[in-house]
């Protein structure tokens, strides 16, 4: 009871402090009042601290089973293991918003503490924007969807959580994705602040690079963890279903991928300034749009949050963000004017620009597919698209991106000549050989995609070999560059895994009697018999299968307390070339059992690629010297001429 009052109080205090910080900071930036800038910034820290207090109180309420709080009742019970009770913090609508706000407060604080070098006005406006976003979230939490709502009667036990969600994947996937979402606000705030203040040099890019990279890495990891969880737990044999929930997480990731590349053109050559502002703003707007779509139920989705009252609030917030960002961009575009691009198409600049255009194309495809039900519903009968639309529309663009990954890193800045073609010979050879080999087994587009990915790996190998020949220490000194190439390898390995499992998947439904065997894609499985286990709250039906020397035990649990809800436990056996994925559909009275068997080639490459990707980001940035310090050492002025 007391926790509920304290939590609601902390949220309200946060709203007041955040609103005060926002108003004061904008005023201070306008009047260049240094004292007010300091006060505004400290008010933001205080609002962030209130958020942290509210988060701690909710976690205490969950762990102490305080069933006077509706949120605790709805998302935990006495029987749930403690780790999952703790995870209930970000498991529901209200709690996940509070978690998001907490991360926004923490990262916002970190970004403001280290931003002194950007100058008072940029700092003031960035504080104002971050405080506005924080205040909006705190307001929604305090007024519309509070995790601290009290029940009039305290029940003896909570409702617990659905068995589908009683899984370790539940502990790490949501917080990573939500933290990624929250992190996109930092580059947005500083980009808009730099625009308003008229500081359009690359200083804001350098300051927010870490945060953009953090957002991108978290989102990469979050997407892959979600895919891993769906593949291992949901038991439908795939890992990505182009559901709106997945799409809205993918789009900001694509926009930030584009930005991480185009920002280098500005850092190194001082070009593409307006473009970079646009990409960072787009990424944040996509996050807000996605949050509105996912949490309002406006488009049909298999896993929408329960429809709640926060939808209209997020639509309003989206409208305010679009108008604000649009106005800032439109009014300040002249200030940010950069020199016209002088480089020819066939250059590093050209490759970055083309990559940006292609990724924007993928965003357009995904966005259209996601909002089509909304648009068509307004004009007539609601229409939806599914996987074939995305494969046909986004597939060719993604193949073009793979081709660019094979060529781009070897293109020099400014101009490509004969030497470039010579450098590309290994990549072209690798791509040609792999494509030709795979075409013989009839993978069509998959052969081309995997071939190009092999070419990309050869390109990275060429770059490493060049550096090693010149001076092996370069790999450490320029680790930002070579770390990025390692991240490229990660993406390419993921791409190979996706292409192989998309084009090479084979599946078969069958009913087997004990002793009978079945062969799918050359893998033979034998059904040996079944058993039944009665556990505390569910009955487990287990089918035993023999696959080579290993035993597989796909099973189904039936929860009597949940109206007989079933839960499939998939059995997966990983061989070097493919996963054998067995789903038990049911046991029959005559002793036979029905199965769905899938053979998914190279799925493990997707998870391995994710690890390589994160490794590349980490190795490339550990102890990386600040760009500003590097430029100062080389006596290059930090502020490029406008």
């Amino acid at each position, binding site marked *: 009871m007391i926790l509920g009052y304290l939590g609601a109080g902390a949220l309200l205090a946060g709203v007041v402090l955040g609103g005060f910080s926002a108003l004061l900071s904008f005023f201070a930036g306008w009047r260049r009042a240094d004292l007010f800038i300091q006060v505004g910034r400290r008010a933001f820290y205080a609002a962030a601290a209130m958020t942290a207090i509210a988060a701690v109180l909710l976690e205490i309420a969950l762990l102490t089973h305080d069933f006077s709080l509706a949120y605790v009742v709805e998302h935990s019970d006495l029987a749930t293991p403690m780790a999952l009770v703790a995870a209930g913090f970000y498991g529901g609508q209200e709690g996940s918003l509070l978690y998001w706000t907490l991360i926004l407060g923490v990262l916002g604080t970190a970004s403001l503490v280290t931003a002194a070098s950007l100058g008072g006005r940029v700092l003031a406006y960035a504080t104002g924007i971050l405080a506005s976003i924080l205040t909006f979230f705190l307001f929604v939490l305090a007024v519309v969807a509070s995790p601290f709502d009290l029940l009039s009667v305290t029940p003896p036990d909570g409702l617990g959580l659905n068995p589908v969600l009683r899984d370790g994947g539940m502990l790490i996937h949501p917080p990573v994705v939500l933290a990624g979402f929250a992190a996109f606000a930092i580059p947005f705030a500083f980009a808009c602040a730099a625009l308003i203040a008229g500081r359009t040099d690359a200083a804001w890019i350098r300051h927010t690079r870490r945060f953009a990279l953090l957002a991108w890495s978290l989102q990469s990891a979050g997407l892959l963890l979600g895919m891993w969880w769906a593949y291992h737990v949901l*038991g439908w044999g795939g890992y990505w279903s182009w559901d709106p929930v997945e799409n809205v997480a993918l789009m900001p990731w694509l926009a930030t991928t584009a930005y991480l590349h185009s920002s280098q053109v500005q850092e190194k050559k001082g070009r593409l300034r307006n473009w970079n502002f646009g990409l960072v703003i787009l990424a944040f707007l996509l996050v807000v749009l996605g949050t509105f779509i996912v949490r309002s139920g406006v488009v049909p989705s298999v896993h929408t*949050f*329960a429809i709640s009252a926060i939808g209209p609030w997020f639509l309003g917030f989206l409208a305010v963000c679009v108008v604000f960002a649009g106005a800032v961009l439109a009014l300040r575009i002249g200030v940010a004017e950069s020199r016209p691009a002088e480089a020819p*198409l066939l250059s590093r600049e050209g490759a970055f620009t083309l990559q940006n255009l292609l990724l924007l194309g993928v965003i357009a495809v995904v966005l259209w597919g996601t909002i089509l039900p909304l648009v068509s519903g307004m004009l007539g009968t609601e229409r939806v698209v599914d996987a074939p639309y995305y494969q046909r529309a986004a597939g060719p663009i993604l193949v073009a991106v793979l081709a660019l990954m094979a060529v781009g890193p070897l293109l020099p800045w400014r101009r490509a000549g004969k030497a470039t073609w010579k450098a590309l010979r290994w990549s072209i050879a690798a791509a040609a050989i792999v494509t030709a080999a795979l075409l013989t087994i009839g993978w069509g587009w998959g052969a081309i995609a995997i071939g190009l990915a092999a070419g990309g790996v050869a390109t990275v190998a060429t770059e490493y070999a060049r550096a090693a020949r010149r001076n092996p220490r370069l790999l450490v000194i320029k680790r930002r560059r070579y770390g990025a190439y390692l991240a490229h390898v990660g993406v390419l390995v993921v791409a190979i895994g996706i292409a192989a499992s998309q084009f090479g998947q084979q599946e078969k439904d069958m009913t087997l009697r004990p002793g009978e065997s079945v062969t799918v894609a050359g893998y033979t499985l034998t059904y040996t018999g079944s058993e039944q286990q009665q556990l505390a709250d569910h009955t487990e039906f287990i089918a035993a299968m023999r696959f080579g020397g290993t035993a597989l035990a796909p099973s189904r649990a039936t929860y009597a307390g949940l*109206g007989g809800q079933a839960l499939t436990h998939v059995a997966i056996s990983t061989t070097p070339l493919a996963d054998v994925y067995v789903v038990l*559909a049911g046991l029959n009275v005559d002793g036979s059992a029905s199965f769905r068997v899938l053979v998914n080639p190279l799925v493990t490459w997707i998870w391995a690629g994710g690890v390589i990707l994160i490794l590349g980001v980490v190795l490339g940035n550990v102890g990386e010297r600040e760009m500003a310090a590097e430029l100062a050492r080389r006596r290059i002025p930090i502020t490029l001429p406008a």
Partner: protein
Amino acid sequence: MSALLRWGVPAAVVAACVGYLIYSASGGSSVYYVTVSQLRAHSPAGDVRVAGVVENDVQKSDGGLHVTFTEKDGADTLPVEYSGTLPDIFQPGITVVAEGRLGKDGVFHARTLLAKCPSRFSTQPYTQ
């Protein structure tokens, strides 16, 4: 001017390609998302998706690989037939989305069957 041409033309070409891909792909693979009553009133040609609540008349055969049931939406009902593995949370009372077409026999032959996921961490299955 030349810079504008050099960058504007490729950008326009990429935009045109993306536009064409979206247009051709969404024309070929979009399906109507209708309610049971809309389907009863006017059945569009080709595949449709129908959402509704599973009634208490689920009949399973072939070890659970074949199922028939009734989908209800408001006052209208629709018999549905489906072959394949069922979603885990499939049971009477949950909302499902069936994709397929309405046969001449008045039975909806579903090609795929999606179940609405439960709201995270809540035991009450999500129903509309």
